[in-house]
């Protein structure tokens, strides 16, 4: 028998002739019903929102210093170049930034910023557009795609990420509900990269960005 057959046979033997007696075997429909029931009453097992609406909650969560995130509210995509320039200047960075192929970032090139698509291994700053934001945790989610290189979120020292206000979901579950069909790679990013591996002491910027700046785009 193959390893697969052996393992499945051992599991079935354990379930039907186990030490604690046989577990009743269920049909796929019964299993699905039981799995769904385990998600009932979601409010009982998740935290109460940090604000009156998802956008307010998201902003409140990003304000948590433990996350290592800064946030700017940007009044529409047209105001993005100015916000990016201001951020780079405030960190004494040159007006250069790596961009993904997302068309909404095209306007950056014309606004006094030098943009490039090939990200360098030690890139100082890059900007991506997130598919979603999650209010419960202050996370942003990126999905791999032709215009969404995952490495742009991981290699730079400063990662800027634009997300539209109406893409902010209240809870982790709301994002999970949108998970099928699954993208090849979905990365839920909550704050800057960090480690506590040396004596439990938190250090920012372990392998990924040491600075994450969220640009919350309103309509």
């Amino acid at each position, binding site marked *: 028998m193959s390893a697969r057959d052996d393992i499945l046979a051992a599991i079935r033997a354990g379930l039907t002739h186990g030490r604690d007696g046989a577990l009743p075997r269920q049909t796929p429909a019964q299993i699905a019903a*039981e*799995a769904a029931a385990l998600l009932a009453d979601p409010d009982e097992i*998740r935290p109460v929102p940090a604000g009156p609406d998802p956008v307010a909650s998201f902003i409140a969560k990003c304000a948590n210093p433990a996350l290592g995130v800064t946030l700017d509210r940007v009044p529409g995509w047209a105001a993005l170049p100015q916000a990016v320039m201001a951020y780079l200047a405030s960190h004494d960075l040159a007006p250069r930034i790596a961009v993904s192929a997302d068309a909404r970032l095209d306007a950056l090139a014309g606004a006094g910023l030098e943009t490039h698509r090939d990200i360098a291994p030690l890139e100082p700053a890059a900007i991506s557009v997130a598919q979603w934001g999650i209010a419960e*945790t202050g*996370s942003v989610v990126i999905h791999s795609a032709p215009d969404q290189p995952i490495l742009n979120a991981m290699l730079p020292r400063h990662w800027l990420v634009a997300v539209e206000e109406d893409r902010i979901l209240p809870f982790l579950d709301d994002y999970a509900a949108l998970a099928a069909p699954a993208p090849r790679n979905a990365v*839920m990013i909550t704050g800057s990269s960090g480690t*506590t591996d040396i004596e439990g*002491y938190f250090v920012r910027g*372990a*392998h990924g960005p040491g600075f994450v700046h969220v640009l919350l785009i309103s309509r």
Partner: protein
Amino acid sequence: MADAAFKTRAHDALADANLKTAIDRTTGTAETKRAAAVDAFPEFQAARARAAAIKDHVIANLDHYLIAFEQNATAAGAQVHWARDAAEAAAIVSRICSDAGAKIVTRAKSMLGEEIGLPHALDDAGIERVETDLAEHIIQLAHERPSHIIWPAMHRTREDVAALFFKDHHPPPDADDAASMVASARRVLREKFLAADVGISGANFLVADTGATCTVTNEGNAELSTTPPRVHIVTAGIEKIVPSTDHAMALLRVLVRSATGGEVTQYTTFHCGPRRAGDADGPEEMHIVLVDNGRARMVGDEFRQMLRCIRCGACMNHCVVYRQIGGHAYGGTYPGPMGAVLTPVLDGLAQSRDLPHACTMNGRCEEVCPVRIPLKTLLKAWRLRTWDEGLVEKPVRYGLGLWGFAACRPRLYRMGTRMALPVLRLFGRGWIRKLPLAGGWTATRDLPAPAARSFMDQYERQQKEARK
């Protein structure tokens, strides 16, 4: 790992003041942060109960979910492999690496990788293995094994790490504070991430209905290990299955709070198959190795509930024994209370029979476990098996046999205690410091001297007086 040496290892660990300092610094912080996270989440107890129920549901239908996961992962373009044991799993990974012509392999920390002996297998295959988790990088430089499942280098103080980095990093760190050393590791590892041919990660969850694997990290090393290389290999225990992404989120809430005290990890990443047409980056091949290594058998024995474990490490952070001796003294891949239950499964009870006994039964581990594993009960089950399988030392066996004989005969037992009490009282008043034939026990402990009369005698006397 010869467990005959457990007592020696524990003894050595207790004498190591540097180790004690290192453990105290990290477990102390972990305990405080977890407590704060739980206080800030009043729904925690309900979420724990639900998490336990989700895991029980998966285990009761494990065959169903594994097949669904395999189907969906395959449909997404991943190649699914099955391994009965550690050797088979390590051989599959080595073969995939050699098929890919791999020279450099980056690894994102996975305890299952340690369990199946992946570091050795890759070294033996002549592949350059780069551990990318900061703690794993530290222990790779020190040629050690992890001593904790969340903080593998917990046994190392900042000063130890500085010594290692100054010796091995070129150029060396700018200073010996934690931030400078993290920056130095970032520099050294960045080149490796981009040069690797294969990236190997574990999985915190295998999502049955999408075929995705989920990995959580705080450093971002998983994404950097799994995105640039041509091949991504995931090794995961078969118990990591969850029905859906939604169920994964429910478990994530209790996992992270219990492990680090955060609400969610900095990076929670779902991988579903290899690079798709037009994708800007990502691996060309994705392999998933589903590892049994004793787990299927646990479905049918008294250790089934141990399959709930989501590897948060809270049980060891709160364990009075772990906090005295650290992880290496346990001798297995997994230390602390969860390790004392799992190591006999993985390495055999004869090799690890001391572990279930190295427990005070104070129950802290059960109180903090996010999936409510009855760890005390499971440790007692191993103690029972140790007896049933004749693995208890002869003097203890005979002694207990003798006691058992007397205990079944109340008159004999009472006569014995009546005779023993005055004898014991000859050796001390208040406390007995030395006792013939019991030197092993009294060397490190004092025995309270017994009362003049046994409980039964006093009880009989009181009953008589009450009747007068």
